[in-house]
């Protein structure tokens, strides 16, 4: 297997009030293989979302390196990072994050439009993806007409619009009940298995573990090796 994401001594420090420095990531070196479904787990404030933001190019690191599919993304300009996110990465956020004035299918094909693919082609793809997530009959509904679980499935379909290499999901089930959470997780698993996309998901729910190929445990901004050792022993 080849590593698609690699970080070396990744650090992130936030400056609060212009004076106080708060380290969010202290020294993270991880490698994620292509096609892996990886969970990032850890207690609140451990730095798991910060790690995901760094991997998703939503924020810049304070130190260390991130390499995605051979590209040292730390060296990319803002414009290059925007293009990289559009073409190579897909995102699913905790609160669905749909554009309120767009219908389900328009939300799904919006990233496709930006790639300068014709609107008809994008619409067709959007409908395919919605059908794949079980919402083909809800294509023309606005987000206010969809349940939380349905909105999150639309967000997953949107993350697949540009056939990204990697999907990054930040606690996608945090606002969902168990049944909808299971539907979403099964959908991620299916996407991972059927399309071979690498998925990195942040969660704090223990029962989600069963869906992951591997779990990266984070505590206090560092890899939690003790928990990982314990997990290995249990396996």
């Amino acid at each position, binding site marked *: 297997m080849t590593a698609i994401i690699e970080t070396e001594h990744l650090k992130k420090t936030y400056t609060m009030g212009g004076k106080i420095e708060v380290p969010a990531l202290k020294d993270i070196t991880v490698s994620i293989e292509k096609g892996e479904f990886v969970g990032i787990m850890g207690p609140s404030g451990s730095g798991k979302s910060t790690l995901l933001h760094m991997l998703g190019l*939503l924020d810049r690191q304070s130190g260390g390196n991130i390499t995605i599919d051979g590209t040292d993304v730390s060296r990319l300009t803002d414009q290059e990072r*925007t293009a990289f996110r559009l073409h190579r990465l897909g*995102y699913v956020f905790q609160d669905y994050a749909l554009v309120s*004035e767009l219908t389900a299918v328009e939300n799904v094909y919006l990233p496709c439009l930006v790639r300068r693919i014709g*609107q008809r082609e994008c619409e067709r793809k959007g409908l395919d993806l919605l059908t794949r997530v079980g919402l083909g009959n809800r294509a023309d509904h606005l987000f206010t007409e969809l349940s939380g679980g349905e909105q999150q499935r639309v967000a997953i379909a*949107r993350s697949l619009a*540009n056939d990204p290499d990697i999907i990054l999901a930040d606690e996608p089930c945090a606002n969902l009940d168990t049944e909808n959470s299971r539907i979403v997780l099964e959908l991620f698993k299916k996407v991972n298995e059927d399309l071979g996309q690498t998925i990195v998901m942040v969660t704090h729910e223990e029962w989600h573990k069963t869906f992951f190929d591997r779990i990266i445990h984070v505590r206090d901004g560092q890899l939690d090796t003790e928990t990982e050792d314990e997990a290995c022993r249990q396996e």
Partner: protein
Amino acid sequence: MFEDAKVSWFLASRAIRRGNKGTSIMTVVILAVVFINMLFIPSILNGFLQNFNQQNIDYSGHMVIHPRVNDRYIENATVVSQKIGGIPGVIGVTRHMSAPVIITHQDRVVSLGVIGIDPLNEKTVTKLGNGIIRGDFLDESDTSSIVIGKQLAGDKNVKEEDELLYSLRGVNVGDSLKLTFNNGVTKSYRIKGILLTNSQTIDYNAYVNIRELAAMTGTNDEASTINIKLAPSIPVNDFKLTLMKYGIQQRIRTWYEDAALVQQQTGGTFIILGSVSTIAGLFISVIIMFVVVYINTINKRKQIGIIKAIGIDKKIIANSFVFQVIIFAASGILLGLILDLTIVFLLAANPISTPNGNIIPFLDVMGIAQAAASLFIASIIAGYIPAWNTAKLEILEAMKG
């Protein structure tokens, strides 16, 4: 770039179609009112100038010959008039003679300049005869008849303190007026007709036959002015040179020059009034668009963060708000123009009455284009600033909402 614009348009059109309709309608209505404000006051001021110019043409003709600088009258006025009348392009020539006079009727005494006119030729140049509201206009044979304006005649039913100008308190056709000329000659004249032209200058005047006035003042074939009407195809300014070529040595003024003089005298005030109205309108539109887009972007900060996160460029996002502003501004301008044209149409049917005549607002295409362009550009700039400020926020900062 065009493809990016298509995405911006895609977002903007959906935002307007499915966004808050009340806010959109309110924004368009406010911009329409601003646009009306920008057009209306200048259109009234233009209407005033148009009215002045039309009255000038209607009651003085296209061109007026005045005595030479050091002369009191134009000598040999008949000869000069005939010479002018023979020039191709001239469709009417008439003479006016002005003389100071004291008019007495019972206990009322008014001092003014009576105008001697050539009744037959007058009709070929001015519309004075069309203004008769009671009685008849003068004719060639009249010697002891006078025509006076409505304001000079006055109205018995109007209280004296309510009169704009000192009048003869309601004299009518058939009444007798005693005229005392500068040389002490006195004669009674019967009022033959009363004029109403809505021009204060005309309506506070008295007119007699020019031959009668010459006899009373002891002048001989002299005139204060010679008034000329030209065929519609003749360019007025060029005709000044033609008159000179035909040997007219007196001072020649066109109605354009009189209009320019009035514009020069009132222009400063008009420009200030027009500018205040335009600047106030633009200022309001800038504030409105800034506030509308600012609140919109504040409410959508999180959404903007998400859109940026999924790889949509900040320029596409900012431009989607600019497109919304363009739609609002274009709709506001269109609505404002329709409403303003309706107001102008209504005022054309019911003009604003002033002592200087009935004013109809005058809209010119260039003025409309300038107001529309300035409102459009000001709105876009005002909308772009908050849109760009939000679009350029860091993704995580924007996603916090």
